[in-house]
């Protein structure tokens, strides 16, 4: 929408400038952003960074403790855990981000329809979401993954579907509030149509909430992916994935701590960073603080 005109860009910059300034004042959040950036960078360029291939087995070097040649040690097949954590990050993050994007899109769609058309349609959507929410989301993901069958795409789908209901709810509530504002009626009074009302006036008003929710959603999705894979319902071995690696290392936990520690650390680190980031974004984008 704002592509050609210089003035428009100036206005945009102005609006997000405040938010960025607020964000940079939060040191912890900036640190977490850097860590997260590093994790994503490593996952993206895993091929170049990893010293060993993901399936490179050296039976003679199986179950070695961390050393100079194998930073994170090796697993029971003699595969380098550092390389597998890097490649695993690629899968975990990809699945988590894809699932969150999917649930964001559908959550916003259902939420805005349910919020805007409060009557019968809204009720119908929300009651369906209530039914879905009555089932714990991990359990739901497990059921879905089990019925779709294991695999990358099905995992994404299962996690996305299980998190759509909460998204819908989070989006609907502020829409109900925004809808009541007089400027909605005012824009109707200048001749705007319903789609324009939703896209131009309602959604931008709840954008901050959507951004925060999806950041936190990615963190949840990472845990869900790992959980599903740990249970053998998600990404299948030999594809490296943090949850799968945890699952494989479980049997050796008493003797070879490194098999579960490093994938576990990767999960913890990315989830903590995403959560801190989400909170910082919430503070930075909160319009109440901007006045």
């Amino acid at each position, binding site marked *: 929408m704002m592509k*050609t*005109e210089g*003035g*428009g860009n*100036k*206005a945009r910059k*102005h*609006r997000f400038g405040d938010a960025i300034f607020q964000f940079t004042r939060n040191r912890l959040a900036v640190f977490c952003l850097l860590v997260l950036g590093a994790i994503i960078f490593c996952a993206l360029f895993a091929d170049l960074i990893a010293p060993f291939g993901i399936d490179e087995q050296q039976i003679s070097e199986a179950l070695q403790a961390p050393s100079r040649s194998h930073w994170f040690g090796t697993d029971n097949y003699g595969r380098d855990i550092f390389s597998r954590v890097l490649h695993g990050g690629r899968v975990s993050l990809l699945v988590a981000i894809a699932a969150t994007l999917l649930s964001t899109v559908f959550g916003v769609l259902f939420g805005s329809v349910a919020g805007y058309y409060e009557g019968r349609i809204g009720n119908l959507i929300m009651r369906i979401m209530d039914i879905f929410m009555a089932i714990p989301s991990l359990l739901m993901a497990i059921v879905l993954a089990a019925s779709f069958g294991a695999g990358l795409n099905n995992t994404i789908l299962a996690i996305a579907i299980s998190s759509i209901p909460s998204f819908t709810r989070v989006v609907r509530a502020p829409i109900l509030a925004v809808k009541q*504002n*007089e*400027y909605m*009626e*005012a*824009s*109707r*009074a*200048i*001749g*705007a*149509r319903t789609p324009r009302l939703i896209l*131009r*006036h309602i959604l*931008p*008003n709840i954008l901050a909430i959507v951004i925060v929710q999806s950041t936190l959603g990615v963190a949840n999705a990472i845990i869900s992916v790992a959980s599903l894979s740990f249970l053998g319902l998600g990404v299948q071995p030999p594809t490296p994935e943090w949850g799968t690696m945890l699952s494989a290392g479980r049997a050796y936990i008493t003797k070879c701590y490194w098999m579960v520690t490093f994938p576990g650390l990767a999960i913890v680190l990315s989830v903590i960073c995403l959560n801190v980031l989400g909170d910082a974004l919430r503070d930075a984008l909160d*319009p109440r603080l*901007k*006045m």
Partner: protein
Amino acid sequence: MEGKKLLSVKNLKIQYNTRSMGICRAVNDVSFDLNYGETLGVVGETGAGKTTIAKGIMRLVSTPPGKIVAGEVCFAGENLLKVSEKKMQTYRGNKISMIFQDPMTSLNPIDTVGAQIAEVLKLHSAPMSKQQLMRKAADMLEMVGIPGERSYDYPHQFSGGMKQRIVIAIALACSPELIIADEPTTALDVTIQAQILELMNKLKKETQTSMILITHDLGVVAEMCDKVAVVYAGEIVEYGTARQVYKETQHPYTLGLFQSLPSLTGDETRLKPIAGMMPDPSDLPPGCCFHPRCPFAENACQASKPPLRVLETGHKVRCMKSLNGRS
């Protein structure tokens, strides 16, 4: 210009069907005409149905629970209640525009004011580039007395009076033929009120726009309006030129409104309000709606609803009695 009808509302009837209170008869048989270039003041207490009349003309009564039950709204010869919603959308903001009561809430907080003025231009005028739109928006801002370069600012960076100027700029952007101003100065303090009224008067004269001014401030009406309609419980109880209504008040309700104004010269220490409350629109009293509060009420007032009598001067009043010489 003179004497040509722009808007003619006939027997407009709007009801709200609520679950808890049953049918609320918000607007009952309201009829009035508005000529080109004229200003009509619609006066009445809170809840008299003034805003509903305005929304009825714009066809913005939210349905459900509201419903325009009967009547006609002829705008430049066309019955707006019959045209398609799509056509209506091309009228709103273009030929008829509205100024809302509270400028604090009628601007979208996340959009620059320039973009909000540009939006109405974009919706209704010939396609033009973003730059042209923004330039026109800046021109509109200048017109209402705000520097054009402020069009990249957000609503929260403006004061209440300036926001109302922006709302006026949006309303005037497409040079409409009719402006409906719904209590445009209620949310502003008195000095700003005067400025805004002056601005509206000036712009109205320059553009020859007709206006419906909804207010409960009799002073505002005196300053701005050619004709006045006094609304009580969804009915017009008195209608005439500003002079007629102010100098030759006919209806006891209008009289009560004038008497409840504090006097600058008298030494009374108390206000003289009209006794009682506005009737519940879901349970209107029989006969004349005002009779429970009317100091001149008789049994006949309860028995049947008085018609809107037309006096020889064109002054209309919905009262059985003649009030002349009683004030």
